[in-house]
C-alpha cells in the first residue's frame, strides 16, 4: 500500500514541478494572445533562442544557468520588441484576404530562427553539465521514520521557484502599475483603450517583448534539467498552445492553472497508462477543453464570480 502512495505522491510532485514550468511558457503566449489576438507560433523557437543564450553564457563566462535568467530575459525582451516593431506591425497594416496572416508570419519567424540556429550552432545536442544535475532532497534524510521515500530534485525545485517568483512579479506588474493596467485595457477592448488615451501601438510592442522575455526565462530555467538542439521549439510551441486554449485565450490566471493541470495530467498518464500515452493525453485535454469548456478555465472563474 505504502508503495502505491509513494508512486502516487512522487508522480504528483513531478507533475506539479513540470506544470509550474509549463505555466511560465503558457503565460508568455497567453499575454501576447490577449493583446494581439493572435497565437504566436514562434513561441517555442524564442525559448530555443533563450536556451542558446543561457548555454553560451554558461560555456563562455561560466555563469550559472539560473543567473542567466537575468541576461536572457532582457535580451529576449528586445528581440520580441524588434520582431513586433519591424515584422509584425507592418503586416498588421496590410489589408489581406487572410485575416490571420500575422499568425502565418510567426510561423515563418519560427522557421527562420530554428534554421539560423542550425547554421550557426550546428545540430549538436547540447546541455549544461552543472554540478547539481543529480542532486536531490530525500524525505528519509529528514524524517527517518518515513513510511516511504520521496525525492525532490534540486534543479527542478529551483526552476519551479523561479517560475513562481516571475509569475508573481508579472501579476504585480499587470495589476499595480500604470503600464500593466494599460496593457490589460488594450486586451479587454482595443477601441475603448484607444479612446482613453492608451498608446495601443506601444502597448503591443511592449506586450510582445514581455511575452518573449517570459518564455526566455522559461528557456533559462529549462536548460539545467533538459537539453538543447535547434529543432526543439515546435514541441514547446505545442505545449504553450494547449495551455493557452485550456486556460482560456488571453487569461493569465487561466494559463497558470492550465499549465499545472497539463503537467499533473501528463505525469499521471505516464505513471498509470504508460509514457507513450502522454502526447495522446495532451490532445485529449486539448479537444475536451475545446468542446466542453470553450472559454477555458477563465470562463469557469468568471462564472463563479458572477454567481456570487
Amino acid at each position, binding site marked *: 500500500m505504502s*508503495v*502505491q502512495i*509513494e*508512486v502516487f505522491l*512522487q*508522480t504528483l510532485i*513531478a*507533475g506539479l*514541478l*513540470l506544470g509550474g514550468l509549463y505555466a511560465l511558457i503558457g503565460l508568455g503566449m497567453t499575454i501576447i494572445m490577449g493583446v494581439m489576438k493572435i497565437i504566436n507560433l514562434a513561441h517555442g523557437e524564442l525559448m530555443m533562442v533563450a536556451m542558446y543564450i543561457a548555454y553560451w553564457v554558461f560555456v563562455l563566462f561560466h555563469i550559472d544557468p539560473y543567473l542567466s535568467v537575468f541576461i536572457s530575459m532582457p535580451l529576449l525582451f528586445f528581440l520580441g520588441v524588434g520582431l513586433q516593431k519591424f515584422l509584425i506591425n507592418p503586416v498588421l497594416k496590410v489589408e489581406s484576404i487572410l485575416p490571420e496572416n500575422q499568425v502565418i508570419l510567426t510561423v515563418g519567424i519560427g522557421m527562420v530562427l530554428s*534554421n539560423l540556429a*542550425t547554421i550557426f550552432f*550546428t*545540430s*549538436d*545536442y547540447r*546541455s549544461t*553539465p552543472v554540478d547539481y*544535475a*543529480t542532486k*536531490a532532497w*530525500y524525505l528519509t534524510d529528514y524524517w527517518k521514520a518515513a513510511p516511504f*521515500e520521496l*525525492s525532490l*530534485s534540486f534543479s527542478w525545485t529551483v526552476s519551479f521557484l523561479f517560475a513562481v517568483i516571475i509569475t508573481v512579479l508579472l501579476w504585480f506588474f499587470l495589476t499595480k502599475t500604470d503600464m500593466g493596467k494599460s496593457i490589460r485595457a488594450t486586451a479587454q477592448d482595443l477601441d475603448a483603450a484607444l479612446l482613453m488615451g492608451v498608446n495601443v501601438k506601444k502597448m503591443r510592442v511592449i506586450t510582445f517583448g514581455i511575452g518573449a522575455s517570459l518564455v526566455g526565462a522559461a528557456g533559462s530555467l*529549462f536548460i539545467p*534539467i*533538459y*537539453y538543447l*538542439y*535547434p*529543432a*526543439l521549439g515546435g*514541441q514547446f510551441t505545442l505545449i504553450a498552445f494547449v495551455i493557452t486554449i485550456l486556460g482560456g485565450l488571453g487569461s493569465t490566471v487561466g494559463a497558470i492553472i492550465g499549465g499545472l493541470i497539463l503537467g499533473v495530467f*501528463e*505525469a*499521471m498518464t*505516464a*505513471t498509470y497508462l*504508460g*509514457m*507513450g500515452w*502522454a*502526447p495522446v493525453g495532451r490532445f485529449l485535454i486539448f479537444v475536451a477543453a475545446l468542446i466542453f469548456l470553450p472559454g477555458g478555465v477563465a470562463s469557469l472563474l468568471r462564472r463563479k464570480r458572477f454567481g456570487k
Partner: protein
Amino acid sequence: MRRFSIIVVVAFLLSLFCSGTLLAQDTLKLSIPLPLTGTQAKFGEMEKRSYEIAAEEINAKGGIKGKKVVLDFEDSQGKPEISRSIAEKLIDVKKQPVIFGDYSSSCSKAIAAVADERKVPYLVVTGAADDITQQNYKYVFRMNPPNALYAIGLISFLKEVVKPKTIVILYESSDFGTSGAKDMAMHAEKMGMKVLVYEKYEKGAVDFKPILSKVKAAKPDVIYMVSYVMDAALLMRQIKELRIDSKLFAGGAAGFALPEFVVNAKDASEYVVTATLWSPQVKYKGAKEYADKYKKLFKDYPSYHGAEAYSALYIIKDVLERAKSLNPEDIRVAMKATKMETAFGP
C-alpha cells in the same frame, strides 16, 4: 517575341541537360537521403562527414570504374514521408541506379518500400529495426546487423556475469526502439527473467520521473533502455535522482554508445553497460585510419553510425565495380554476391 523567348529558354534548358549528361560520363553522381535538420540531425551530420571522407579516399584512388564520385545530400528531416519522396525523386527523376543511406529505421523502411516497388536496389545503412529486411523485399539489402543482435550480445553478458531474475524494459516509441525492446523481452523470457515493466516513451520527453517511480516500485535487477543520446542521459540522471538501485543499467546501442552520453549524464553514467556495434578500437582493417581521420577533421570521435556510412560507400563502390552495367538489375545481382571486409567489419 514571346514565342521566341520560350524557344530560347527551352534550348537553354536542353543544352544544360545535354551538358549534364555529358558530364555524367566521367563523374558518378550519387544522392544520399540523410536527416540533416530536425531532431536526428546530429547523426545525419556525422554520416554526411563520413561519406565525404570515403568519397575523397575513393576519388584519390581513381574513383569507381574510373569515374569520379560526386556526392549529393538530400535532407529527409528524419521524416519517413520526406524520405519516401526523396527516394521517388532519385529513382524517377535522377534515374539513380542504386539507393543507399538515411538514418532512422522508420525512414529506411519508407525508402525500402519505394525501392522494391520500382525494382531498384537499396542498401540499408543504419536502420536497425528487424522487419525492414523481413518483408520478402527482393531489392533491399542491409549492412548493419538487425536490432536482435544488440539484445543477444547483452543477454550473453547478463547470463554469465549478473544472473538477474527480473528486468524492466523502457524504449522510445520509434521503429528502432520498439523492435529492440521486443527482442530483448523475448530473450529475457527465454532466459527465465521476469519482465516487470515494459513501457515505451515519446522521444524528447522532459520528465521521466513518473515512469521511473513506477520502475522503482517494481524493484528490478536490471533496467534495459533503448534510447537516443539525450533521452539516455536524462534517464540516467533521473534514475540517480530517484535512488533506484538496480544491479545493472543496460543500454541498447544508439544513445548510450555516443561519446556525448558520458558528458551529458555526468556522474550518472557510472554502472552503465551498453551494446554497440563498433568503436574506434576494433581491429577491422581501416577502422583506426578512419577514426583518426575523422577525429583530425572534426575534433571528435565518430560513433558506429559514422563507421557504417563510411563503409557503405565502399560497399557501393565494390558493388558497382562488379556489376556488369549500371542498370538496377545488374546491380542487384552484384549486391547479392557482396562479401567484403570494410572498416566496419565483415
